[in-house]
């Protein structure tokens, strides 16, 4: 390396950098503006929530000017288009809860057992094949599930339950369960995998079988994460729309009979909008009241899930 180039550098690089720096006032301005700009973008998500709440609330209030809150919350009859309309939400709540519970009855045991298999039994290779396959299940559009429930599961169920109606709450409930399996499996598996391996080794070294490791050590340690996955699953089932719209009919039944057609809150919204709900009528406002109820339901579920899983994260 010549002394000449050394000198060159001495002059050029440092000086160049200093020079450039002096001519970069625009850049510093830009640099300062960036956080404000990004803040504005980030604020949009808060704005979306505000937008949802404002939209729902303002029309819901209008609804309650026409239909007393108590009638809405305790009414077991929903006849929006009748000459003597009644707006009790309980049939819809019943439909929603029933379908979600059926979904959970399917998804919780199967999802959890899949999670145990994937996290405790499967070899890396098997896990790497099975998990993406399960995730494919989560990627199937709900409309496809709806089609499946209507054209396959219901006829199949008729083989076992002859009196089942062509639209019923059982079939979409089961199919929603299938749809939720990967969600519960994957979230529970995450929770179980984050239990330190040393815990498993400790237990195995005492002569535990893998079943005992899973049931006595891993599941208790991952419990809050697992429960959070259940709650998120319920929340997902409550909000699911197309499967029930297609396969559970639109009878506003207040019943416990799962072979009957029932309507969920989401399916009611689809029915009432029917393309483009006309503004001004009580039915139109009922849409928002039902949506508000749905929103509150899922919000509660999500908050519970978050609280539970935060507790879980503090454990290690």
């Amino acid at each position, binding site marked *: 390396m010549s002394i000449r180039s050394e000198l060159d550098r001495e002059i050029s690089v440092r000086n160049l950098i200093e020079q450039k720096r002096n001519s970069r006032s625009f850049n510093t301005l830009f640099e300062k503006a960036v956080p404000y700009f990004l803040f504005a973008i980030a604020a949009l998500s808060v704005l979306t929530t505000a937008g949802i709440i404002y939209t729902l609330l303002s029309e819901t209030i209008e609804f309650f000017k026409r239909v007393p809150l108590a009638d809405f919350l305790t009414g077991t009859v929903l006849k929006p288009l009748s000459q003597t309309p009644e707006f009790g939400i309980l049939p819809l709540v019943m439909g929603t809860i029933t379908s979600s519970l059926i979904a959970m009855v399917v998804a919780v045991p199967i999802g959890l057992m899949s999670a145990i298999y994937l996290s405790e039994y499967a070899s890396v290779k098997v896990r790497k094949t099975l998990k993406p396959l399960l995730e494919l299940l989560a990627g199937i559009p709900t409309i496809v599930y709806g089609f499946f429930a209507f054209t396959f599961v219901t006829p199949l169920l008729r083989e076992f339950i002859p009196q089942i109606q062509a639209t019923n709450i059982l079939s979409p409930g089961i199919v929603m369960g299938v749809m939720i399996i990967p969600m519960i499996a994957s979230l529970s598996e995450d929770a179980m995998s984050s239990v330190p391996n040393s815990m498993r080794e400790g*237990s195995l070294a005492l002569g535990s079988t893998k079943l005992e490791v899973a049931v006595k050590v891993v599941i208790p340690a991952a419990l809050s994460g697992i429960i959070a996955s259940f709650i998120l699953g319920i929340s997902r089932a409550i909000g699911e729309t197309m499967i029930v719209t297609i396969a559970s009919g639109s009878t506003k039944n207040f019943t416990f009979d799962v072979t009957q057609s029932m309507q969920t809150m989401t399916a009611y919204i689809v029915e009432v909008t029917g393309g483009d709900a006309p503004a001004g009528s009580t039915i139109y406002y009922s849409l928002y009241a039902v949506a508000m109820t749905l929103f509150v339901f899922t919000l509660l579920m999500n908050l519970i899930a978050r609280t539970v899983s935060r507790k879980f994260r503090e454990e290690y």
Partner: protein
Amino acid sequence: MENSNWKKPVYETNGLNLWYGSSHALKNIDLSINEKEVTAIIGPSGCGKSTYLKTLNRMVELIPDVNISGSITLKGENIFDKSIPVEMIRSKVGMVFQKPNPFPKSIYENVAFGLKIHGIRNKSLLDRIVEESLQKAALWDEVKDRLHKSAYGLSGGQQQRLCIARCLAVDPEVILMDEPTSALDPVSTHKVEELINSIKNDVTIAIVTHNMQQASRISDRTAFFLNGEIIECDQTTTIFNNPSDPLTNDYINGRFG
């Protein structure tokens, strides 16, 4: 390489080879671990100490792609015998790990864990064994007032002794210890060493350590591993004062590793 054993071997290893995939981690190991003795396993990092220890209770098989040849007998029974379930072997052989790993349960439940999985539910029996095990592990006095509190409230040293108590509760033939004090402070280390001394008349111990002073302090016999091979195994005093292999000598004197 073995010499005069007036004690009965518990473990006998013959021509043991182990591969992680294609990497040959244990090469032709012959080694006996004698009853009611402390056998120390020393050697530089990566020489295969932990691998050997984990082979003794077949924990090494949890790692995918492990291949083993050769034989290991535990009290005369081949541990690789298909008819013996690994769980059986592991319930006879306790293991203590480098980092204390109590379960996220109460102190009591930690010690009772092994008993419960073996179907012991009798409350008073459980109580008795838990107390005895904690006493043997020199932990009873420190924890007797908080038996039903979480084990995570204990210090690192206490947790490690709890892990030892957990092993002792099922009355194992052998306890395998993989650098049980390397994550502990000097005071806790001292306590664990004392504990090892106090139980070694009841149970056979194999301990991996990177601390040569520790090996010389607590062990009866010492095996020196290098690059997956066993270089020398002898009475600890012999290994540290009069090793027969120059490599051992170099290692003991800090010339490598």
